[in-house]
Each structure stands twice: as structure tokens, then as C-alpha cells.
């Protein structure tokens, strides 16, 4: 299946990639997806993931055509 993978903020900068379309075996979990896309880097402990712009568990399995985003803890707002 084909997955659109996106990275944000510090993760995007460190990995040097904002988005990449990849082809992975069916039944690839989001955790496994990371290892396939960024084999040189272990999955950070505090990483967050979203599937089609909704928070998702790392153990869940995306569908063909999904957009999967990885990002660090959020730091929006103020005060």
C-alpha cells in the first residue's frame, strides 16, 4: 500500500524531510512504518502520530492512501 508520510517541527528538521510517499507491505503498523521510512533513527519515546489528521495509536495499521504524520509533543498556545 502507498502511504504519505509527514514530519513536523524538530522532527522534520532533524530528519531533513517534511514529507515522503512510500510503498509498504499491507498490515504495516505505524510503528513499523517509521522503521521502514527512517531506518537510521529509533522511534522517539514521546513521538505523536496522526492518521489522516486524527491522533492515532502507534500500533494501529493504516490503509492504502492514508496520510500518516509523526511529530514531537505539541507546544502551541501561550500563557
Amino acid at each position, binding site marked *: 500500500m502507498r502511504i504519505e508520510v509527514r514530519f513536523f*517541527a524538530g522532527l522534520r528538521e532533524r530528519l531533513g524531510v517534511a514529507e515522503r510517499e512510500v510503498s509498504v507491505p499491507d498490515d504495516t503498523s505505524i510503528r513499523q512504518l517509521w522503521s521502514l521510512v527512517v531506518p537510521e533513527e529509533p522511534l522517539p519515546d514521546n513521538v505523536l502520530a*496522526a492518521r489522516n*489528521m486524527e*491522533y492515532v495509536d502507534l500500533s494501529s495499521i493504516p490503509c492504502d492512501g492514508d496520510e500518516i504524520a509523526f*511529530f514531537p*509533543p505539541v*507546544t*502551541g*498556545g*501561550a500563557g
Partner: protein
Amino acid sequence: MTVRILDAGFDPWALLSDYQRAGAPPEGAYGATAVFVGTMRDFNEDQNVQSLFLEHYPGMTEAWLEKISVAATERWNLLDSLIVHRVGELHPGEPIVLVAVWSAHRKAAFEASRFLMEELKSKAPLWKKEQREDGARWVEHNTPG
């Protein structure tokens, strides 16, 4: 119920004035308006911050802010809500976030505005990079409210 991501500076008071003048929420129905404005300070954890870069996830950021707006509206029976968040480069003194809610009574307004800010800070996909004298660095986590 309105959510806006802005990439240029905004005046929270002018924005609220325009929003109410445009007739949302309906005049005479609400007795309570609670507003929170988060502004960029010139210090964080005792260090000078010269500027700030705010990144978001276009589409998901708006979706999350709409989701928490719906949750607050249902839970506190709000008459209206407005969330505005800056992205891009900011300087000290500039507003970063505006949350406003309108309800019949004040208890709902106080609680809902605080709920929205906590939900926004803990889960809205937004990230800050601080420019300090000793260089730039991504903020690692938000402090609890």
C-alpha cells in the same frame, strides 16, 4: 463557532469587536463572555527570547480546534466560541492565541474558556521554536496550566 489560523499579527480586541458587530453571537442572548489572550513574553525559563517561530499542521490544527470547540459547546451549552491562533514568526508583545466563549451564565464561560486553552495547549498540533541570544531551539513541551 469559528476557528482561524493567522500568519500575520492580529489585535485581539479589534478582532472581537468585529466578530461581535457581525452579529455572532446574537445580542441579548448571552450574559457572559470569557476571553483568554496568550501573548509572547520576552522571557521563558529565565532566558531572553528574541523571536518565536510557530509551525502548524495545516488541516489537522484547524480540525483539532474545531473538535474541542464542539466538545465545549456541547458540554457547557455555549452560544458561540472563537479560537484564533498565530503561526509564523512572532516577536515579544504579540498575541499568539485568542480564545473567546459566549454563554448565558458566567460559570459556563469561565469553565469553557479554561477547558479550551488546556485542550489547545496539550493537543493542538502547533510547535514553537525560540530564537534566543545563544541560538534557536524547539520548545520541548508545554507547562501544565
